[in-house]
């Protein structure tokens, strides 16, 4: 498998009647990359994923894979976990996974072997001949992921794969996604668990009202934002920082204060001013979390 291949979303738009679901959206997911897709409910994540899968036709734009427009043959090689989970409730696990494997182009024997392998991986081997409906919801979710993985997909598109999972299952799921990405598969998934996205994703796309408002590594997303510092100067007067331009007090925690620095402001100047007022017990650079970046970006987009 070439590691140069990438999934390119090029200027896609989709409207439902008066509602614009996705507006001129473009981004890439490269081979070996775990791409987190975040946004509020109704922002257009599911619509985008459905367009990638060809389940929905875009009004404009196209999806390309490996330099070519994504056709049916290429789409059959995408592993998909829809937001609305769905499998046959009255079909045996192994049989169901093997069937989906064959639908995606595997031979019968390959599909059966792969079905057993993935059930084994998710600890469901002894349930192989049970109907799906006999499983707990968490286990059904594992089968759903196995359904997306069973045929060895070239691309993975997962809509909210972590929703409803217990912490152990989250770790298993995250491990599998990382492993697939490391094997050279572009993985795109949506989630509201921003901490998790920050922890495991290589790159993040933030979508708001159908538009991509930020896209890049978490560090890149931080770069444009405000710098923050925690400073603890126990004996200082209340407005000791007033002499430093471009600095705003954000939060007070006992004698500790959190300041936000405008771009270009030298934090050493703030530190010197602090030292002038008294002994500095703490001086900490604070990285904004993805959650904070997300809120900032969404607010800016709204303004």
């Amino acid at each position, binding site marked *: 498998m070439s590691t140069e291949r990438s999934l390119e979303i090029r200027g896609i738009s989709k409207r439902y009647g008066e509602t614009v679901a996705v507006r001129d959206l473009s981004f890439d997911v490269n081979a070996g990359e775990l791409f987190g897709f975040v946004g509020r409910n109704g922002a257009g994540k599911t619509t985008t994923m459905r367009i990638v899968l060809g*389940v929905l036709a875009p009004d404009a734009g196209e999806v390309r894979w490996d330099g070519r427009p994504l056709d049916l043959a290429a789409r059959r090689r995408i592993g998909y976990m*829809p937001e609305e989970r769905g499998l046959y409730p009255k079909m045996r696990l192994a049989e169901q996974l093997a069937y989906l494997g064959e639908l995606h182009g595997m031979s019968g024997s390959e599909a059966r072997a792969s079905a057993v392998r993935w059930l084994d991986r998710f600890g469901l081997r002894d349930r192989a001949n049970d109907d799906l409906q006999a499983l707990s919801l968490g286990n059904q979710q594992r089968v759903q992921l196995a*359904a997306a993985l069973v045929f060895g997909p070239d691309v993975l598109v997962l809509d909210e794969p972590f929703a409803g999972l217990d912490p152990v299952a989250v770790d298993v799921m995250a491990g599998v996604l990382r492993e697939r990405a490391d094997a050279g598969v572009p993985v795109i998934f949506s989630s509201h668990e921003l901490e998790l996205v920050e922890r495991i994703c290589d790159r993040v796309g933030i979508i708001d009202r159908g538009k991509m408002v930020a896209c890049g590594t978490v560090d890149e997303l931080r770069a444009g934002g405000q710098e923050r510092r925690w400073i603890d100067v126990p004996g200082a007067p209340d407005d000791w920082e007033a002499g430093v331009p471009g600095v705003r007090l954000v939060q007070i925690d006992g004698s500790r204060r959190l300041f936000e620095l405008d771009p270009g402001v030298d934090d050493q100047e703030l530190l010197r001013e602090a030292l002038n007022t008294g002994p500095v017990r703490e001086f900490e650079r604070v990285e904004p979390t993805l959650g904070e970046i997300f809120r900032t970006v969404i607010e800016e987009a709204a303004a």
Partner: protein
Amino acid sequence: MNARFLNLGGTRHLPTTLLVARREVRMRLRSRVFVGGTVVMAVLVVVGIVAASLLAGKSTPVRVGFSGGSQALERSFTATADALGVAVTVSDIADVTAAKAQITAGTLDVLVIGSSTAPTAVVKDAVPSNVESALSLAAEAARLSDAGLSPAAIKSAMSLVPVQLLAPTTPKDTQNLLASLALGILLWIALGQYGNMVAQGVVEEKATRIMEILLATIPPSRLLAGKVIGVGLVGLLQLTIVGAAALVAVHVTNVASIPALGVTAILGDILWFLLGFLFYATAYSAVASLVSRQEEVQSAIAPISIFQIAGYLLMYASLPNASGPLATVCSLLPPFAPILMAVRMASSDVPFWQVGLAAALIVVSIVGLTWLAGRMYTNAAMRIGARVRFMDAFRG
């Protein structure tokens, strides 16, 4: 592709339509509905045929015993009975008391005592009317012979009034009518059952949301085609099993001369089933794709079911006169042809052009419906939730 197709060693790649069809067949064959339904249908058909053969069994010969002087009547009685169309077997009776006991026991039907010119018939409860006539005529001839008439004169004096039958009814016709009716009901049940199965299957995939995964893999038209083919094959298998049971029953009970139960007729019925199934299955799947919950299936398919129920009623209305204008016109119309034409063909001779026209019309309708169903299914398949309006699904 073909080479791999022929490789049955488990590494073959089937076209997606056939994969879908295979899943349908496997899942359905495993279901209790299929196994139970097949057993019930086969039992009903066999019981019907056995009952028909028992009805036909009423024409076993009437056993008539002659004692004493009446024995002289045996030859002329047999000949007369034969002319009257009643089968009899005659025997000589020596012990009248024992013969009466036989009549009471039901091993002898009629005992004739007395002389040849004045015989008396002894029966258990009633004497078959033709037997009574034959016996009276035989005694009359004996009296005329005693009076000195020559056999030729007696024959001319006693000749029966010739009867010309314009539309003869035989027991076989009644059996055939019953067989046609049974066939019509069977076809009607099969069409309803398998049409419904396709509709339920379409909605199941929407209701369980697996539709989205499937449509991300294969085009809607292939999914629909696979489903229709799979369910159709299951229906065909069931009808073949029932048909085979019918043929075996016919062979064993020896009522094979009933045209509706011949091999060609059964093959014809299977063809009509297939045409009817394709017609109703595509129509059902189109309307079923508009809804997302199993509870809504029946109301969604109601506009189509009405045609099926009308077909059932028309079958009863047209059976008494299978060549009349009502039967003829309705059996040409695609929604009714699968049942009415099959029933008409079983119960009477239908002109070839009518059969051909009915088949051509339904094939054309199936092509049109397939186009319509494919369009509606494609547009409605992903709209899960509220019922999709017909025109929205049609326009897309």
